[in-house]
């Protein structure tokens, strides 16, 4: 038996994740093929739908915005050793914070309203993530289970709030009163004609800022150092005097605040009101994005763009190929989580063997 040779860094960081994603797409292609459709045609439609024209690209970026925030939320918690499956619920509850300030100061110029919505939404999202964090830190309740449960509680809570409290009298659909146009987060099409009637708005730029912020926080600050220590070795964190309870609660709150920006994008920017289930699974896509992007902002950005393109391209696909529904994207999402997350090491051993064979003749041995 030969010794296991560690893989070169570029293989570990880039090639392996890419191969896993390719594998996920190959299997997705086989599924499409199995129902008698041509996967290559499907890819063609998707690429055209996602990048081929202005508003399509705008939609891609709109989805990308949501996924960046949700992906960063999962990634941040991940660095502290926690699996936050709750961005869906955290974003949903944050919608309440956004709509409260928006309706309270309805008519205020967006330049003032935008930061207010960020703060209020952020606080609500942070709160919804803080409770599981608190329960983990102080009561030892497992965060995976509690964040799942909080997603469901959020559905019930927000269902009640929207249908029984926020819904104005005389309105049929389950939604809040609208935010005035001047208070809404401006669409990028107001500055760039390219985006035509797509919903991508200023929150997209906020997402770019968030990517840099998370990089700085995790790798360039004392807080990030403490967080990574806790995530990698909780006993060493205790040895180093890093308060795990404080770290867990703070990190979860920050994670929830990041997820909350999905609400700013949708409630404040796209819908201009609070509607039922506006998060629409973006929080869960964040899980896939975080794994695919290896919890690194660069990876998260790329993975978010890929999923943004998939979601928008999937719309196009459903139009052009009636045999395929948009849910094919959820399947791809599942395969990506499976291959990059749970089975991430499946290709590692064959790759190690391959590289060992490659390197041996070169080493002269």
């Amino acid at each position, binding site marked *: *038996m030969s*010794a*296991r040779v560690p893989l070169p860094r570029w293989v570990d960081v880039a090639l392996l994740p890419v191969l896993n994603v390719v594998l996920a797409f190959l299997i997705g292609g086989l599924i499409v093929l199995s129902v008698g459709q041509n996967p290559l045609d499907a890819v063609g439609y998707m690429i055209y739908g996602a990048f081929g024209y202005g508003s399509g690209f705008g939609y891609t970026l709109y989805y990308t915005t949501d996924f960046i925030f949700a992906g960063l939320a999962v990634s941040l918690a991940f660095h502290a*050793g926690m699996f936050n499956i709750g961005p869906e619920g955290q974003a949903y509850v944050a919608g309440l914070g956004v709509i409260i300030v928006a309706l309270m100061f309805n008519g205020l110029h967006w330049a003032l309203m935008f930061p207010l919505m960020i703060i209020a939404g952020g606080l609500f999202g942070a709160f919804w993530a803080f409770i599981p964090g608190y329960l*983990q*830190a*102080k009561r*030892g*309740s*497992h965060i995976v289970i509690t964040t799942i449960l909080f997603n469901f509680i959020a559905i019930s809570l927000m269902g009640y709030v929207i249908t029984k409290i926020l819904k104005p009298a005389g309105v049929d659909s389950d939604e809040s009163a609208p935010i005035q146009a001047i208070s809404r987060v401006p669409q990028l099409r107001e500055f760039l004609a390219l985006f035509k009637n797509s919903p991508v708005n200023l929150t997209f730029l906020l997402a770019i800022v968030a990517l840099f912020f998370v990089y700085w926080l995790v790798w*360039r*600050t*004392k*807080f*990030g*150092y*403490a967080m*990574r*220590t*806790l995530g*990698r*070795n*909780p*006993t*060493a964190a*205790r*040895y*180093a*005097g*890093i*308060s*795990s*309870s*404080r770290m*867990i609660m703070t990190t979860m709150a920050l994670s929830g605040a990041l997820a909350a920006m999905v609400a700013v994008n949708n409630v404040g920017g796209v819908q201009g009101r609070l509607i039922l289930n506006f998060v629409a699974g973006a929080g869960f896509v964040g899980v896939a994005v975080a794994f695919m992007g290896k919890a690194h902002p660069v990876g998260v950005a790329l993975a978010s763009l890929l999923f943004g393109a998939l979601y928008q391209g999937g719309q196009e696909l459903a139009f052009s190929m009636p045999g395929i529904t948009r849910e094919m994207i959820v399947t791809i999402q599942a395969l990506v989580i499976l291959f990059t997350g749970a089975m991430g090491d499946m290709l590692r051993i064959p790759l190690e063997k391959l590289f060992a064979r490659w390197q041996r003749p070169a080493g002269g041995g």
Partner: protein
Amino acid sequence: MATQTSSKQRLETAAALAPAIELRGINKHFGAVHANRDIDLIVRRGTVHGIVGENGAGKSTLMSILYGFYTADSGEILVNGKPQTITDSRHALALGIGMVHQHFMLVENFSVLENVVLGAEDSPLLAKTLNHARAQLKRLATDYGLEVDPDAIIEDLSVGQQQRVEILKALYRGAEILILDEPTGVLTPAEADHLFRILRTLRDEGKTILLITHKLREIMAITDEVSVMRQGAMVKTLVTAETSPPELAEAMVGRRVLLRVEKGPAAPGKVMLEVQNLVVTDDFGIPRIKDVSFSVRAGEIVGIAGVSGNGQSELLESISGMRDQLLGSVMLNGQPLSLQGDDGAHRARLAGLAHVPEDRQRMGLVTVFQEWENSILGYHHEYGSGPGLDIAKAKAEAKERIAKFDIRPANSDLKTANFSGGNQQKIVLAREMEGNPDVLIVGQPTRGVDIGAIEFIHNQIIKMRDAGKAILLVSVELDEIRSLSDRILVLFDGHIVGEADPATADEGELGLLMAGVTKDGHAPDAGPGTVPAHETLIEKNLTQMSPQDNKDKSGLDE
């Protein structure tokens, strides 16, 4: 002497029979590590055969191969003269080979009976199996002196009793050859003596016993033959009666060991660390340190000796702020030190206390971090004035320390897991010593460290003492305690049971203390893990505390 003649007789009788076990040319690799190289071994039937070697010499790997837990890369195994390919533990058991592991393989919330039958149930329904086993256990208990309550739950038993369950497990499966891996590491001397009595009985009944240990005293006391391993290879096999501890020690390490460390007399100054009436519980709320008081002066090394598991870990962890104390106080340089809470270690460091933990990989390092990142662990808040981390400063200091402590390879960007045990320990040592603390507490400083590094580490500790620091040294290696300490305190069952002067104390005296026998002849009535019958006021208080008050369970470690 009776035992020696009978040992000789045993060997002569056995020589006529096929060996119980014969190994030929066994090799085993783990990655780049050659754990076993060309091992040959003959174990004669009806004898006790010892295998000695330092930590990491490959003893446990060899036994795991014999037990089918690992498969050898090459080589031959003969059991009772017949070649066998032992593919798994089940196969080993079928060949009559049983193993008592160093870390017990017991299900803690199962009863003794359930553990004994696990994997060897003779019927798909439990009732029949358990009845049968109960009768069998009773017989084994009377035959070999292995009394354990069959219905007791494992986690309620003392370590010694748990070990008896392990032996029962092997015997229940009809083991004729019994492998014991470091069986006394966790036992008190009294429990170890009891174990040896059991082993002698087993041998007299015709069982073959393979005893793996690094303690020469045990080899001399019980074995008929002894094989020495060093760095994965079998060095030699000797008849125990014809060898001596120095000869074995030399064979183990390959050269004469310098056990005495060069050091001048201590010049103790004022009291720097003062521990008063300390009471600490373990993760399960069981008191492990029970009313301990002592002090350490500037410029002296105080060594805490004791058998592993008598409260050493809890003592180290509570003074360094890693574990909440229940009662008592710790004073540093005359100031009371508040150590409660999960950031207690941070306050301890701020007050001038540095800590080299007993388990560097689990506590003292984040092995996936780069070297420079570990070089600031616990001190990261000192790097940079704002929220930002001053990485340039951290890397520069890491490089200085690499040079000063001769850490190899000299690369501060390398992942810490890629350093050897000795170099990892140097990373920890450099970090804790360079912080210029007033008090340094050191746990098991040379565990799993190669000989060259041991000398270096010992010299650094002496240097710290000579620089006027107060040093608390906790080690289960009695030789290390004796050669480094200026004063020795002996810890037994959570109490300090005596003090000794390393210059005058002899091994026998210390051994008695470590067994809990104090000078007034008071013998211990309980091993570690059990509360003595005479409850002090403090222990009464303890029993009134509910387990929920123990907040040190974030659940993250699981």
